């Protein structure tokens, strides 16, 4: 099936480029007949939560006087959720981000926020494609 091939290719690509790591594989393995929408659920939650956090980060970093502790706390959250979902690149960028927070570098933080945002949206787009392809496949092979 074209959809199946596309899905496989997409996932392979995401793994190969480091967008995803083995944690995502674990999630894939956890999806089964008892929880057929598990991956979709997790991915969706991550995308929503991630977007919220990035929004908060942007707001915090816009302020003239940045509260780095709060920024760090949010970055930590994002790091945790990206780690849980296997979003490797985002997670790693969060690690860098935290370093800038620790060193109270607004510029560093802003720059890293941009990276995180870019990577996050890239990942999100691919996740959305992935989910669409999966739905198509489910349509073909109803559970």
């Amino acid at each position, binding site marked *: 099936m074209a959809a199946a091939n596309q899905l496989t290719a997409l996932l392979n690509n995401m793994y190969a480029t*480091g967008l995803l*790591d083995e*944690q995502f594989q*674990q*999630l894939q393995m*956890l999806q089964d007949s*008892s*929880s057929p929408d*598990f991956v979709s*659920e*997790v991915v969706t*939650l*991550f995308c929503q*939560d991630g977007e919220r956090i990035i929004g908060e980060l942007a707001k915090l970093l816009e302020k003239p006087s940045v*509260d*780095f*502790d*709060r920024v*760090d*706390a949010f970055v*930590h*959250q994002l*790091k*945790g*959720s990206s*780690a*849980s*979902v*296997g979003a*490797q*690149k985002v*997670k*790693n960028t969060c*690690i*860098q981000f*935290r*370093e*800038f*927070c*620790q*060193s*109270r*570098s607004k510029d*560093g933080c802003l720059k890293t926020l941009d990276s995180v945002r870019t990577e996050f949206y890239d990942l999100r787009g691919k996740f959305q494609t992935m989910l669409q392809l999966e739905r198509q496949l489910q349509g073909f092979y109803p559970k």
Partner: protein
Amino acid sequence: MAAEARGGDFPVGMKVLVVDDDPTCLVVLKRMLLECRYDVTTCPQATRALTMLRENRRGFDVIISDVHMPDMDGFRLLELVGLEMDLPVIMMSADSRTDIVMKGIKHGACDYLIKPVRMEELKNIWQHVVRKKFNENKDHEHSGSLDDTDRNRPINNDNEYASSANDGGDGSWKSQKKKREKEEDEADLESGDPSSTSKKPRVVWSVELHQQFVNAVNHLGIDKAVPKKILELMNVPGLTRENVASHLQKFRLYLKRIAQHHAGIPHPFVAPASSGKVAPLGGLEFQALVASGQIPPQALAAFQDELLGRPTSSLALPGRDQSSLRLAAIKGNKPHGEREIAFGQPIYKCQNNAYGAFPQSSPGVGGLPSFGAWPNNKLGMTDSPSALANVSNSQNSNLLLHELQQQPDSLLTGTLHNIDVKPSGIVMPSQSLNVFPASEGISPNQNPLAIPSQSQSFLASIPPSMKHEPLLASSSPSNSLLGGIDMVSQASTSQPLISTHGANLPGLMNRSSNAMPSPGISNFQSGNNPYVVNQNAMGVSSRPLGVLKTESTDSLSCSYGYIGGSTSVDSGLLSSQSKNPQYGLLQSPNDITGSWSPSQDIDSYGNTLGQGHPGSTSSNYQSSNVALGKLPDQGRGRNHGFVGKGTCIPSRFAVDEVESPTNNLSHSIGSSADIVNPDIFGFSGQM
């Protein structure tokens, strides 16, 4: 354990409660745990989780909690759970910094998982449940024998002998202590020796018992307090040297922790005369503590100050106890097994404080802080079905009665509120309440030592009696600390005072016996250490007990170091300082280049980055753990663990919800109403 109750197929069906504010993680964990065939409940809010636990102690076998949560610091939750419910708690975080992990361990976490959590790790969590249970049982096994299989024992033995030999030389003691602490940390984390498969009831360090312990320690002087002598002084039938040794270990750790936390705390010493509060640590004790370097003077002062809080603290108010005691008596006969103050690992934290808190010197008192033993325990004890229990029962009754007469209910109520005593080895006072004779100093007989022959399922919930201990609702918060604690002590038996789990053993302390008389006791309790019961001994300032020396009051507060006084105090128990304190790390500004491990491509999770990340960054991140000296966690900007400011209330007792200064025990101490903040005392508030 709940799982066992379900029979068969352990660990299938083991009940896990997962607490994490990250929805993604929560969903992933839930799925993984279900895959392990556990029974999973998720909760995005720590406060809600705590409520759930309080309402249904037996409902869960193990808890997995995130460290950084917005409404409550994970460490605080950890301590509270340990104290109240004595359930194994596994911490988890994306933060793998060693100091944070260490903190988790020291707070009593059974394990610390780094996100992303893998299935393999989750599959093994049942071991923590079993291990905890076995360890508890093991404590009861070795009564008086030296052949300790428990890993703590050898350490204790060594230390004990050494210190005896050295005649309490500070140096040796300190080094021993250090070694013990380290080993204790490890030991605490490790699984118990599986050799003891018998379900011996474990010793529950009830408030009374703890108070006796503290009294004994105070009497001996911290440097000279060796398990053997403490045991002798305590004179509690059925209590073994090993029990005392491990308890002492924990206590010292706690004191040390408190000391460390309060290192920077200003020194709000309250002049003895000035605060009608609980007598601060006895001069001797305080000195001893300070001398030993465990508790910085300021900390002690602060602590004491806080603890003592109120001049009229409800330390052992005679009136109070009565009702509570009465209740205790009533409850005492219930089959509980649940409400014992389990002296779990985390308890030692409090103990340390307590230790410090005790005013050693009070001449009148014999320097024994009247730690109210945990009256509840007595109650619980009576319930426990063990041979000892029988004995204890009678004793308990005596105690209860005695206590009843001595203390007003109100005291208990307040403090006991949140204490859920887990019935594991109930320690029953061997004798009448007397344990906390404020005026007497050590009351060896009070030792409530009840070792139930059968260990309750180790997740036994707290006996209903304990739970509803009205006693806890001490009307008079007199006891500064934990108002509740006071009550506990007062209620002496009725309330399972705060389980000493976790650092907050506040309830334990004052509970009764000594504490009775003095409101001072209450002071302690609120503060940090149940042990601090100093209040009791100290003669809680408010009380002219005679025993409690006023001077001790001051020291009490100081000793505990817990005190709320400095908001940061949180005795490190739980609260993480708001500002990024959690991380407490200062990262050197330019570490992006990976100054530390430039070539490492491993991120904080230890996963190879391999993505062209500058290895350095990740490594930097890790290395920056150099830590600043972690600030006491206060949660995100909140004083989570800290009850009110400046109160000496161990974070444990802080309210579940954000700790606003109003939660201060100090506030509560004055008024019974306040005390009832369940959280403060680790009680569910339903008392």
